[in-house]
Structures are given as structure tokens and as C-alpha cells.
């Protein structure tokens, strides 16, 4: 299938007083229409910078982008601000991490929801308002007419996130970037929001780029998974492959850190200690020698500290950036 959005060799570097921070360093991935791609990794590995880069929301300078973000025959990296504005909220839109602070506290929900219709479809305020009411009921908010007149502080976090999603999908975007859309919400609301996003995806057929560190969300939503570490892609596979046959120690570490409900009757696994990945993401400033994960890797060898592994195909449609990828068996 022809990819809808193709990110090739994306680099996002920040000039800081302490040196150049390579937040994203040579990331490539494709997303097709109707598909959900999950980008996972722990805090500080470049997930959010990736999502902000796609919409070109980073301040340039201090940020500097390089590479290709191909969408609809155009390279978003080269577009000027005016052309980007035409795309944002219209063809490509974004759902932010913190719903409570992503709405302007001084404007009613209705005014903010009417905004994309006014900006991109040239509707008058009355028509835009009518569409906004439709959007509110579409995202499952009861009493939409009443909610339109309310201010963000009168809504709960889950409702704010529904409003944010409604704003994001108002113009039927081809790509929806969701940067940890459920992190600030409690589990039941999380499930409802994910359901909502899946339903809307089926309805308008958009591609979703889901940024998360919650592998449970990944299993539920995504078809493809990109695992990021220290600004680079370390593994890229279908969701089934990632969970059953991870070929990178980092991915295995992430999977090992998920608590499981005691389904096993076996005593040894029942009282299994939750494994963590020791250490933290290395500084993105210092130039890397060898594999960036070498310092935390449980299976590290001498060669890992000298030679940075290239991303190689280890199975059909499954890439991994580990020297030992072939030697890793399936997860127990």
C-alpha cells in the first residue's frame, strides 16, 4: 500500500548552551491510510519531538530539522509557515497530552470547537457552531448544546480530551497525531477515549500516529510499532511480532517491565519480581560511540561498545538495530 505519510531520515537537533541535543537522529517510518502506528519508548527518547516535528510545531531556532516528511506529494520540512497553517488542523491534526491545559481557559468550549471550521472551511460563526454541536455529540458528550456554552474548567479531564479530539478531527484529517492522549486520564476514561479514537478512525479512515509509553495501549490500538531509544529507531515490526518475538533487548526490557495479573498457577512466576531496565536514557548531547543502549543492556558484548549497530531486517517486515538480533529467541 502507498504510504500516506513517509518520514525519511528525520533529524531534529536543538542548539543549546550545553551543546547540540540530538533529540531525533535519523528516524524513518511510513504510515498508511487507516493504519495506526505506535511510537513507543521511555521519557526523553524523542517521541514527542517526533510528533511536534511532523506538525512543525518546534521553534526554529533553537530546533533544526533535516530529512524528509513526505505527505501528499510535498515535503513538510520545506513548507513555509502559511502553507503549514493550511495543513494543520485540516489535513494533519494533533491531540495533546494534557487535556486540561490544552484548552484556552477564557473561551467557551463552543468557540474553540468552532475554530477549525472557521479557519479551514470558511464557515460563518453560526454554521460553525452547528457543526461544533454535531462534533460534540459525535465524541459522545451528553447535552452538547449546554456543554458548548461551558468553559474548560467546568469539564472533567476525560471530557476535555473528548473536546480536544473533536477539535482535532473536525476537518476529517488524513493524519491524526496523538501524543500520549490517555496519559493524564484514569483507566476507565482511557478505555473510552481509545474506543472513541478507533471508532472515529473507522469512520473517517485517517491514519493515527500514536505516541505512548503504555504498551497496553499499543496492543489495543496499533498495527505497527516503532520502538525509539535515544532519538533513534531500534525496532520496527507489526504489533504481533513486537509482543511475541521482540528482537531488541530494549524492547524486551520494556515488555518485561509490564506487571501482569497472576494468571499463572506456577509459584515461581507468580512471585516474579518486576524487572526494570537499569539506568536512564543517556545524554543526547555527547556523541555516541557504539550502541546507545550498551550501557544498560543485559546482554552487552565488547563489540557493542565500539560499533553502533545498523538497522537490519531480521524477519519479514521486522527491523532491529542490535548486533545480537538474530540470537534473540522468542519471549518466554
Amino acid at each position: 500500500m502507498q504510504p500516506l505519510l513517509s518520514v525519511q531520515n528525520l533529524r531534529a537537533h536543538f542548539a543549546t548552551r550545553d551543546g547540540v541535543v540530538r533529540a531525533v537522529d535519523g528516524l524513518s517510518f511510513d504510515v498508511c491510510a487507516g493504519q495506526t502506528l505506535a511510537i513507543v519508548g521511555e521519557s526523553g527518547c524523542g517521541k514527542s519531538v517526533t510528533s511536534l516535528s511532523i506538525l512543525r510545531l518546534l521553534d526554529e531556532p533553537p530546533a533544526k530539522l533535516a530529512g524528509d516528511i513526505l505527505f501528499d506529494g510535498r515535503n513538510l520540512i520545506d513548507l513555509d509557515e502559511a502553507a503549514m497553517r493550511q495543513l494543520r488542523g485540516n489535513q494533519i491534526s494533533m491531540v495533546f497530552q494534557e487535556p486540561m491545559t490544552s484548552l484556552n481557559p477564557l473561551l467557551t468550549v463552543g468557540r474553540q470547537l468552532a475554530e477549525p471550521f472557521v479557519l479551514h472551511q470558511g464557515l460563518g460563526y453560526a454554521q460553525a457552531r452547528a457543526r461544533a454541536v454535531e462534533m460534540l455529540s459525535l465524541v459522545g458528550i451528553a447535552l452538547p448544546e449546554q456543554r458548548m456554552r461551558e468553559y474548560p474548567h467546568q469539564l472533567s479531564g476525560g471530557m476535555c480530551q473528548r473536546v480536544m479530539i473533536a477539535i482535532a478531527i473536525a476537518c476529517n484529517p488524513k493524519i491524526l497525531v496523538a501524543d500520549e492522549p490517555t496519559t493524564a486520564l484514569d483507566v476507565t476514561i482511557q478505555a473510552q477515549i481509545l474506543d472513541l479514537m478507533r471508532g472515529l478512525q473507522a469512520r473517517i479512515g485517517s491514519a493515527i500516529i500514536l505516541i505512548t509509553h503504555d504498551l497496553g495501549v499499543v496492543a489495543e490500538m496499533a498495527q505497527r510499532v516503532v520502538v525509539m531509544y535515544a532519538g533513534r529507531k531500534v525496532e520496527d515490526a507489526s504489533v504481533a511480532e513486537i509482543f511475541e518475538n521482540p528482537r531488541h533487548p530494549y524492547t524486551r526490557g520494556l515488555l518485561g517491565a509490564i506487571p501482569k495479573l497472576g494468571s499463572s498457577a506456577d509459584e515461581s512466576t507468580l512471585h516474579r519480581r518486576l524487572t526494570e531496565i537499569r539506568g536512564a536514557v543517556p545524554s543526547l548531547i555527547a556523541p555516541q560511540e557504539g550502541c546507545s543502549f550498551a550501557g544498560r543492556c543485559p546482554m552487552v558484548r565488547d563489540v557493542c561498545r565500539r560499533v553502533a549497530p545498523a538497522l537490519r531486517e531480521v524477519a519479514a517486515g521486522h527491523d532491529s538495530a542490535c548486533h545480537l538480533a538474530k540470537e534473540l529467541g522468542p519471549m518466554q
Partner: protein
Amino acid sequence: MTSTVDTAGDVPLVLQAAPDLPPIVAAPSRAGPLTTFARRNPTLVVGGLLLMLIGLAAIFAPWLWTVDPHALAPARRIRPPSETNWFGTDDLGRDVYSRVIYGARTSLVVGAAVAAVATFFGVLVGVVSGFVRWLDPIIMRIIDGLMSIPSVLIAIALLGVARGSIANVIIAIALAEFPRVARLVRGVVLSLRERSYISAAIACGSSASRIMSRHILPNAMDPIIIQATYIGASAIITEAILSFLGVGTPPTIPSWGNIMAEGRALWQVKPYIVFFPSIFLCITVLAVNLLGDGLRDMLDPRAAKRI
């Protein structure tokens, strides 16, 4: 404790009623919205009422038992306060009471106009500085330079080259005061632009001007309004200083500073000529400052203490 036995059902029940505890506080009486507002914002209401009183006096000056403030009466020079001249007369025989009441017009007009003009330009410069990154250091160094000179000195220097008139006084004081607004607005814009609803608005396709007018300025309004009142108060004082020094409001227009300047020579023998305009100046400035404090308490919930 008493227990009763209920035998109405199949099985007899031993009942014990929960003790009835009386409330330990009395519910406050429901006051009207105005009373509630006044009780929550006492400084705002006191300052506002005082200022309103002075404003009404200024507007209705001709009907407040005043005479022509310019009328000379050489025969009745330097009279102490009496039934005909409540605040006495000055060295030209003019009625000090009438001059003080008419002088309120000058002070209030200058205060309000300076607040408006300085806020307008301050917001303009502050927004540009906060939003256009490469211009920020240049603008801020100029503002630093302006702020390093006392505002009265700037105003005196400006009025030294221009003719003294109310309009020129307003422009001079506004020029001296606007850097404070610019600095405040820049700071607020810098902090607001990092809010995530601003990123959300950009992600929605809003242009920079739309973000400025719809998202940043409305959220910056509270501190701007509060600052504007303080600038009004400071402008009233500066106007009086300039007039007292003889570089401000022309002597043909009564202003509190002018009256004080004229009474200065007689200060040791006839203090009332200086005393009455000073009292009015104090009360007006106090009223505006109380209004500013009250607005701050009302608009900034973190600083406000609720009763």
C-alpha cells in the same frame, strides 16, 4: 439512650434512634450579590467609591457651590477659610475651594489618559518584544535605558523642549511610564506562549495574529488592567510634581500642582493654600491605589483572601 421494640413485623426489632447532634455553627444569612461582592472585595469597593466621588465632583464642579476659579478679587487676597471661601483665597484673591474642585478635572483627565496611552503603547511594544524573538533583546535594552532614568526627569526633559499643555503633559508622562507596561506584557506573553493551549491553537492552524488576539492578549488582560491603575495613580502624582515645578499644566488651568506652587511662597504664614490641594491629591492617589489593590485581589485568585 432509649431503645424501643418494634413488634409490627414477624421478628420483633430492637430499635435505637441515632442521637440528634445540633449544628455547631450558624448558617450565614444569605446576603444580596452586591453585599457579597463588597464583603469579598472591601478595598476595591472603598477605592472605587472614593474615586467615583472625586470623579463626580470633577464632572459637576460648576454646580458644587463653586465660583469662577479664574475670578480675581484683589480686595480679598489671602483670606483664611471662611463661610464665603471655604478653603480661603490665594494671593490673587481666587477662591481656593473652586480651584481645587476644578483642579480634580485636570488630575483625573491626566491620570486616565496617561493610563490609557501608556498601556496601549506598552502592550504594543511588549507584545512585539515577547513574540518576535530577534527584536526582543534590542527592544528590551532600550526599555532598560528608559527605566534607568527617573520618570519625572524624562517628563521634565520632554516638556523642556515642548510647550506646556495638557496634551503635552499626558504624552510626556505616558512616554516615561510605558516601559513598565512593556516589560510586564513581555513577561506575560513569554510565559503564556509556552502554554499548551497555544501549541494546540497552532496545531489547529491558527495564524500568529489570531493567536495573539484570541489566546494571548485576553489571558494577559488581568495584570495589564492592574498595572494600568497603578500607572494612573503615579501619573496623577507626576502631573502634580510637574505643575509644582512650573513645567507642567499651564498656570491658566487650575491643577493641584499649580495651586500648591502658587501657595508655596506663603507656606509658612498661610499653609491652607497648600494644605487643601495636597489632601485632595493624597485621597485621589490613595483611592486609585486601593482600586488597583482591590482589582489585583479580585483578579488574581492566588493572592486573594476569601472571606
